[in-house]
């Protein structure tokens, strides 16, 4: 289970509406995922405090709704003709005396809207390649590796790297070689998946691969940092 799946189900989990299998999967994920545990704790707090709120209800709800409905009906014109006449009267009764500055401001606004519309129209007819066919030369809209999820992973990676660097010198050659090999594969995978995600930000598969590459780097560093 990944964090996206967990977030979709966390609310039902807190409400006790999941079956046992799904509950187990979520709990397994929560055991290893601090951000999702934080989300669960926030939801639990909300439920807890909501439960403590005092219920407010009118003394006679049926009577209240009846009075509201009666008032709405009374304020509306009865027939379509009456409604149209009502609208025309409102329009006719407005005072349309504008000053010269007001007229100039309206004219300027209309000209601005026209110019912007023309520019957008022109741009859309010369559109660059759509997402998924990126040429890699520019970062398309939607690419966002600075999301909190990736930033957290980057931070964790920096911390673990520092720990590993301190301990690496004392390992034997076998362990050092295994670590260096693992890091080469991890960094290669991270670089490639990062580039693919930049080129195809709308591609869910690319985003998942990038997320998995980040998590794998954390896993490798955690494992060797324990040595």
């Amino acid at each position, binding site marked *: 289970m990944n964090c996206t799946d967990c977030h979709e189900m966390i609310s039902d989990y807190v409400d006790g509406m999941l079956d046992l299998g799904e509950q187990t999967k979520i709990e397994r994920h929560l055991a290893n995922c601090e951000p999702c545990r934080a989300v669960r704790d926030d939801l639990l707090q909300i439920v807890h405090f909501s439960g403590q709120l005092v219920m407010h209800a009118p003394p006679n709800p049926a009577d209240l709704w009846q009075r509201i409905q009666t008032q709405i009906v009374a304020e509306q014109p009865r027939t379509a003709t009456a409604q149209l006449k009502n609208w025309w009267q409102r329009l006719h009764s407005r005072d349309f005396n504008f000053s010269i500055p007001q007229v100039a401001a309206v004219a300027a606004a209309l000209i601005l809207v026209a110019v912007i519309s023309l520019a957008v129209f022109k741009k859309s007819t010369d559109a660059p390649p759509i997402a998924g066919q990126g040429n890699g030369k520019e970062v398309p809209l939607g690419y966002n590796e600075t999301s909190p999820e990736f930033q957290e992973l980057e931070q964790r990676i920096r911390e673990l790297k520092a720990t590993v660097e301190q301990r690496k010198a004392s390992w*034997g050659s076998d362990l050092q070689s295994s670590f260096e090999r693992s890091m080469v594969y991890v960094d290669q995978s991270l670089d490639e998946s990062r580039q693919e995600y930049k080129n195809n930000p709308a591609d869910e598969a*690319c985003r*998942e691969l990038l997320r998995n590459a980040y998590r*794998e780097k954390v*896993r490798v560093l955690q494992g060797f940092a324990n040595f």
Partner: protein
Amino acid sequence: MLLAVVGWCASSATAAVKFDKTYSPQGRARLSVANINGSITVTAWNRKTIAVSAVNESSAPISERVIGDSISLEVRKTIPPGKADFQIFAPADTAISLKNYMGRIEVRGFRNDVSIKSYDSDVRLIDLRIPSIDVNVTAGDIFFDGELTGDGPYTLQTLKGDVDVTLPASNSFQLSTRALSEKINLGDFMSSLTGTSKFPKGISGTHLRGGPRLNLITFNGRIQLHKK
């Protein structure tokens, strides 16, 4: 004289030691093995006991912890790490959890959950009819030949290596494949997938009634799915 002493010290550090233990769980057992450098082979048998046999260097001492039906074996981390090769037989309904840094892993014949985490290991999973599996290696091929019998999920991931899976045509699953290399071959399953979504780096779809998620992921390698 000095050379003799040094030689003796070196040989003591790497002298092979045998670890032989048998455990008798009362119910369904949970077996965890944490190795560092060496192979782990776990095979199901029709006895009720768990038999562990390991050949380990004296620089790779093995500690055990038994709590009820939960058996944990761990090779203690020493610098430099010693080598230990495990050969284990256990009842088919044992839940298996294996961790390793480097060394081959093989699991054969089980009917309960399997979890494998390693960094540099080829993993072979043979004749597994299991409710869920979670395999995650940094470098190494993953080979799976078995059946999906539960709610899943079934996740096989390697950064560098191939994922090769063989399943019966009757298995229903919700497939998700991701391969940075774009080398995905679903074989005869391709024609029987429905609701297929294709991306440059992945294919998803439903086989038969769908249900348990089958996630196959590799960054630098191939994904191959075969019908048996």
